[in-house]
């Protein structure tokens, strides 16, 4: 359950304007896909939603409350790479969120509580199709499996908002289709609001309920940094029925 309000948000680095005057109202349980040329502020926008970066001007609100200026469990994230913990096995990676929530001092659960968290993590892994890989280390998984783990790890904390930064960008096309199915199912089951940055337009149309394109509205050829990007298209998408699998 989360609505997101972006209220006149600007992001500037010194004289360089990255984003200018973003105004958005995102409804609860929306699947927002964001496309745009590289360097047009998509990732910066995601970082601001995450709390990694602060807007230079303006405000971002979740359910009417200004977001905390640092990452918190309300906002889960899946990056393209590097977001798993190499020293933990797959199931330990997924359990970590539960352990951090329930063991404030040691960050580690023991005994019955640990078994319960492990069972919950294993169930989560089953649902993303990684049950058999639970006791392996992330480095031993393929790219697609690592992203499944990363998604499971983020979703188990039941974030209100899930942020995906080109999560499938590094995967093979065949794997990507499975991942799309997975993320849509988790989105339905957990009623999250999702923001996904992608460079794949087709993917963005296919997954999203609302598609945003970021681009510069004005360009000054003498000083390209003078104007920032904003939302140039804002399209509600109706979800088409899933394409039937081709007869073999």
């Amino acid at each position, binding site marked *: 359950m989360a609505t997101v309000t972006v209220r006149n948000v600007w992001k500037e680095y010194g004289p360089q304007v990255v984003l200018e005057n973003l105004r958005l109202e995102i409804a609860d349980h929306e699947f927002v896909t964001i496309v745009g040329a590289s360097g047009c502020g998509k990732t910066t926008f995601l970082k601001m939603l995450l709390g990694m970066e602060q807007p230079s001007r303006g405000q971002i609100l979740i359910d009417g409350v200004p977001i905390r200026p640092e*990452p918190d469990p309300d906002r889960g994230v899946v990056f393209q790479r590097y977001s798993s913990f190499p020293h933990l096995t797959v199931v330990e990676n997924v359990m970590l969120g539960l*352990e*951090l929530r329930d063991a404030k001092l040691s960050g580690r659960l023991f005994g019955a509580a640990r078994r319960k968290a492990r069972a919950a993590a294993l169930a989560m892994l089953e649902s993303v199709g990684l049950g058999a890989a639970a006791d392996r*280390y992330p480095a031993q998984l393929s790219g697609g499996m690592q992203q499944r783990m990363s998604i499971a*790890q*983020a979703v188990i904390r039941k974030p209100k908002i899930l942020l995906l930064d080109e999560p499938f960008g590094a995967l093979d096309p065949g794997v990507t289709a499975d991942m799309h199915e997975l993320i849509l199912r988790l989105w339905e089951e957990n009623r999250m609001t999702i923001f996904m940055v992608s460079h794949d337009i087709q993917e963005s149309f296919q997954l999203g309920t609302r598609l945003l394109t970021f681009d510069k509205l004005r360009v000054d050829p003498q000083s390209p940094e003078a104007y920032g990007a904003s939302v140039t298209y804002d399209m509600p998408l109706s979800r088409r029925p899933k394409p039937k699998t081709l007869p073999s």
Partner: protein
Amino acid sequence: MRRLINQHPGRAAGLALGVLPFIALLVMYVIASHLRLAENPDDKLLPALGKIASTFHSYAFEEDKRSGQMLFWVDTWASLKRIGSALVISATLGVVLAVGIGVVPRLRALLAPLLGTIAMIPPLAILPVLFIVLGLEETAKIALIVIGIAPCIARDLALRVGELPKEQIIKAQTLGASTWQLILRVVLPQLWPRLIDSLRLSMGSAWLFLIAAEAIASTEGLGYRIFLVRRYLAMDVILPYVVWITLLAVLTDLALRVLRARAFRWAEPER
């Protein structure tokens, strides 16, 4: 004929190649020693292996007439105690400083310049200060080793903390980690194998500082003994002591390597 870079020795051949230089050195020593002794039977520079063995036997397995102790083991124990305590203290200091500097920006601002400066002080230059302030007992010797290696370990580990992908740190926060939990569950576990690497690299300096401290002010220890018998040109004592120190260092290194491979399987490179 394959290129040289593609010709790999087999297991047995590889082992033989590795042993070869050691045997060559030994043979060269025996020949040189033989030649010198043939010319002057009282020569002390290159004693015969038999002479070394009998001196070693008297040091390691017979009680010293004056002190009633077996000097070799007394020396070994004294040195190992010093270097062991120094390594434990340095590792602890290194980890604490590195985590503080690597994780907490305010601590980094406070401590990083100081640590960078302290690491540049040549430890031997302040050895006299240590002896004056801490006395000639154990503390000064251990302090010298710690001052010599702890700043390097701390800086190395702080760099390692900095190398942790930012994505990991962000991810941990979105999973609800507090600063303390982040240190406990994300940073420290990934630092342990690096600490072992860092200790392995510091072993050489640690022995250097130990022997320097022992040579200057001590009443027992491997370094002390070597510098004591130097006055009598007692190569038959010095040589086995050097071999023993080397052996101890090699074994420590091996132990650390095995520990890393066993305890941190995830950090081992894929084969």
